[in-house]
């Protein structure tokens, strides 16, 4: 099996031997991959494969039990495993959530402005007196937010409270909020889940646009295989917390191990069993 072990300069995120266990369950088991600059890299796998857990490790919500994670988005090598979530966001990694985590009782505009938090530099007392520096920074932030609103066609919802928005729009707002952070790496956790066919089409266009026009590297988890094969440059398949296969969408889709993980084989049920963590049987 070809492991993704490029050593060239265009690697943006390098994961080596990541493992994470919750008690006796090995949610992620010795996973290694490289995300290259400017590509769309997709994690696929059946339910419970550990894809979202990999995301949560990258964004710092869970520290991995083992392994290393290096990020090269700022020009220097940064070890992400030692950073808190807000420090990881500060390096230019933005994410969306599988179950939409927007700020419900704030308007869309406020949500997007919160997305720009990592760019704010004014001090506490400047903000209390709302000095000219703060006002200018607010207008600059607003300008950036407006370009994202323009890109994702959210003009109509600018002043609406998130609590009153339909699911499909929330999904787009969450993508917009992540983009407002001007990330160099964007993590999308199931961007098309819960969307109808038309909205999924739009999402596919936007993801391609984000890569091509904004030059943002995208790492996503996705179940919709037609979307995956349309937008992804490379695909990484996981099952039972382990890596199965990697390569172009076509290569991965025809990989025997991947087909087996998704569909199973008639006679071998034990292959689906997850290996136990150390210390438990």
């Amino acid at each position, binding site marked *: 099996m070809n492991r993704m072990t490029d050593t060239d300069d265009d690697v943006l995120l390098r994961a080596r031997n990541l493992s994470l266990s919750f008690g006796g369950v090995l949610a992620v088991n010795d996973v290694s991959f490289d995300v290259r600059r400017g590509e769309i890299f997709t994690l696929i796998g059946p339910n419970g494969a550990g894809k979202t857990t990999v995301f*949560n490790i990258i*964004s*710092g*919500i869970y520290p991995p039990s083992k392994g290393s994670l290096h990020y090269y988005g700022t020009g220097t090598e940064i070890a992400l495993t030692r950073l*808190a*979530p*807000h420090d*990881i*966001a*500060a390096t230019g990694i*933005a*994410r969306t*959530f*599988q*179950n*939409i*985590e*927007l*700020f*419900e*009782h*704030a308007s869309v*505009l*406020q949500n997007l*402005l*919160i*997305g720009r*938090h*990592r760019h*704010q530099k*004014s001090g*506490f007392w400047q*903000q*209390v*007196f*709302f000095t000219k520096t*703060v*006002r200018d920074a*607010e*207008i600059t932030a*607003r*300008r950036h937010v407006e370009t994202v609103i323009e890109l994702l066609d959210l003009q109509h919802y600018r002043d609406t409270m998130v*609590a*009153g928005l339909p*699911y499909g729009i929330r999904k787009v707002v969450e993508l917009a*909020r992540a983009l407002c*952070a001007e990330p160099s790496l964007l993590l999308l956790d199931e961007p098309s889940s819960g969307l109808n066919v038309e909205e999924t089409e739009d999402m596919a266009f936007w993801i391609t646009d984000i890569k091509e026009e904004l030059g943002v590297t995208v790492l996503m988890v996705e179940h919709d295989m037609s979307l995956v094969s349309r937008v992804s440059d490379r695909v990484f398949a996981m099952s039972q917390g382990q890596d199965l296969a990697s390569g172009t969408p076509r290569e991965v889709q025809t990989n025997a191990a991947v087909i087996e993980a998704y569909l199973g084989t008639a006679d071998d049920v034990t292959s689906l069993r997850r290996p136990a963590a150390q210390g438990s049987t």
Partner: protein
Amino acid sequence: MRFIFKTDYAQDINLAKHGGHVGWYGALICALILSPWLLDDYWLAQLTLILIYSIVGLGLMLLAGFTGQFSLGHAAFLGIGAYTQAVAINAGLPLIVALVGAMAFAALIGVIVAIPALRVRGVFLGMATLALGIILEEAFARWESVTGGNAGLFVQSPTLFGFEINEATPYYFLCLILTILVTLGVANLLRSPTGRAFVAIRDSEISAQSMGIPLARYKTLAFAISAALTGLGGALYAHKIQFLTPEQFGIIQSIDLLLLIVIGGLGSIHGAFLGAIFLITMPQIISIGKDYLAAGIGESPGLSAMVYGVVLVLFVLFEPLGLYGRWLKVRAYIQLFPLYRRGMFERQKSFQKSERLK
């Protein structure tokens, strides 16, 4: 009906969104400036109390309404402010120094409280702050050399620039100026990144930190500001009542403050003011209403507590956004007349919020 045509980003940033705001708030400030000559002494004293409670309400609103950290022991900060002020003024310190000292000391205690608050949330945070309230009330009672214990502590009249502020009118103006400054400060904070970070923490801690907001720093900041404002309110309150006893800063006072922000309307600056008006005028209304009730009911001792309880239950059931939420509906009704629809403010019910990462 007013249509706002937006042509400039500053329109969304300015505090006054349109000419109507300038006019109405200008009129309100004029009325407040003229009220010493319009109201008699009793109602001026009540108005001063409303201003003091508004400052305290803003403090708690920032913490509970905007950052989502409920404190059940906020009267402790009121007490810290009041006792610090009393001790400083009695020691002969100037008013401004005493006020700043009361705020700073309350903020310091607020930061210390924030340290356990970073680890707990929801009902456990409520219990931790409740414990703090009880401990500090006890401390006010036991530390007799400083606080005078249960025997009480007299507060001398403050002097400002050589003038003794012992009359109602100068004191009213001191409270008015401070209220306006605090309100502007809070409003400014809420339209800048810090205020948005508070709201983000309230609505989703997990995505707030993924957006680059350090939870620990902003929660501590929210506690510090909230405690400082409550301390300022306490300092003014000390001069208003002029005699401090520990039981004024007990659990009942804490619940009153919580009542203030919930009935006023969680998550709005207006709510702090409306809640303060409610809290101060309600006893008056109850005592007026007593005369019209049958003697057996009107004279019973638990009447006002019961009325408060009933009002709170009614608000939670029918108007969770409090008096301010009700005002928004009334205003929309008037502005849109006759086009107001009954369901306009209905919240969409959603069941998709994930609890997985909490």
